[in-house]
């Protein structure tokens, strides 16, 4: 059974069609990187999978369950899918520990103690236990993003979505966040990662998908996509990336 299946997914904002029939599936424990220029539809696809955007037509299934059907409990679906955003989106009025325990307590119904124990376990796994009583604004961008990842992991999702999670970070802080994602990949987490970090994608992905203008133009093993892209648009995109010194 596939962890995620997108079938002919269409999404428009007004007259602008952002996704023009996306077909994509992920097996369990698979790590897939989405690459493509800004506006190619990477973020929108992730937001659709998390049901933050309603798709216009097509079908999305997670672990065999069609999540875009009518009458689906969206809150239940979202528990099983963690998403991490470019701009962290931590809750500024809550401490790190409160950020991480919010969903376990409110959504999964854990008691305060149990939720905090589990949160501390996760935080210490990623070297953040000493920040547990800090407010997000007192943390560096890299720390904030790591807390955001821990927060998303706290509901024990089977699928993690990453939406350009290092794009808002200072260059020297990128590595610590990518390190966390790498660790998750080694732990067997199924992940769909939209990224501009091509070196990282080549390193970590089992498969790389190139999105262009709302179409999944080309996909394959990272070594094939990066060294021998078939589509002219993919070649063009990668040449620009290389010219910018990002690969």
């Amino acid at each position: 059974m596939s962890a995620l299946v997108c079938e002919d997914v269409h999404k428009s904002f007004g007259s602008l069609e952002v996704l023009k029939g996306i077909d994509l599936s992920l097996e369990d424990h698979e790590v897939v990187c989405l690459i493509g220029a800004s506006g190619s539809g990477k973020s929108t696809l992730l937001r659709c999978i998390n049901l933050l955007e309603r798709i216009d037509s097509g079908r999305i299934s997670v672990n065999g369950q069609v999540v875009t059907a009518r009458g689906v409990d969206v809150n239940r679906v979202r528990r099983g899918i963690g998403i991490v955003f470019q701009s962290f989106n931590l809750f500024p009025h809550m401490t790190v520990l409160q950020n991480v325990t919010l969903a376990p307590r409110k959504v999964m119904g854990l008691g305060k103690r149990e939720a905090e124990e589990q949160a501390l376990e996760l935080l210490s796994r990623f070297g953040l236990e000493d920040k547990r009583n800090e407010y997000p604004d007192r943390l560096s961008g890299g720390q904030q993003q790591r807390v955001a990842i821990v927060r998303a992991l706290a509901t024990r999702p089977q699928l993690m979505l990453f939406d350009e999670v290092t794009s808002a970070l200072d260059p020297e802080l990128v590595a610590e966040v990518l390190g966390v994602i790498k660790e998750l990949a080694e732990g067997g987490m199924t992940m769909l990662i939209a990224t501009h970090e091509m070196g990282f994608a080549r390193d970590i992905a089992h498969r790389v998908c190139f999105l262009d203008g709302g179409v999944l133009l080309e996909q394959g093993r990272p070594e094939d996509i990066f060294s021998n892209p078939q589509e002219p648009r993919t070649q063009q995109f990668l040449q620009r990336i290389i010219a910018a010194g990002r690969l």
Partner: protein
Amino acid sequence: MNEDDRAGRGSLILGGAGRNVSIAVLSTLVFFTVLVLVIVNAPGWENVKHTFFDPKVFREYFRTIGHAFVLNIKIFLVAEVLILILALGLAVLRSLPGPVFFPLRLMAIVYTDVFRGIPTILLVYLFGFGIPALQLSHVTKDPVKLGAAALVVIYTAYVAEVYRAGIESVHPSQEAASRSLGLTRGQTLRTVILPQAVRRVVPPLLNDFIGLQKDTALLAVIGPVEALQRATIAADTEFNYTPYVITAFFFVLITIPQARFTDWLINRQRQRRMAGGQL
């Protein structure tokens, strides 16, 4: 950053330290000396002094009006609690999304439009004289309660708008983050949106409350013996307006600490924002 800038941020009133303080003190002294001289040398000053600032009348009515002012305080304290709760409800109604809630949103909008438009004194009249005239057996005829109700109705409309501004100032990405964790819309509102919104609107909210406190004096027109009504009775007895000055004194007395507190809050929020700190 030089020293003057730093001090300037710390003290909004004096606007600086050291040499700047001396300049501020001097210019204040000059300004008020000139003002006092102009007033005292006005042709009608003797007359005004006798009518508005009679020490004998002042001493005689200071305590009486002070006692009456306790009623104003009670009215606004009760009203403020009710307004905080009702306005929050109204603001939440108005921010409900989707077509299903359209009737509720519409009601909230009509409410706000109508009651922000009606002059407070008119609604005090309408409630104070209109409701008892209906002769409903279970509805109070107490002018204090009816007048307070009119204030609650009016200020709920204002404060709801303040809350709504706060709710809308919370970035949509906060809601996305919360919903993505599986929290329901209601849980998101309670635990993520409102706590941030309310923190941000405390200063404008206190500002509205200062307005409300002064408006308790409007209840005088329907009869309760609060500070202004007491002052009117005294003025009519003494043929002297000093009681009004006493009343003004009490209103100013309770307003000043709140105004300074509001300034302090605004200043603190700005400093925290600049330090990248927690709001």
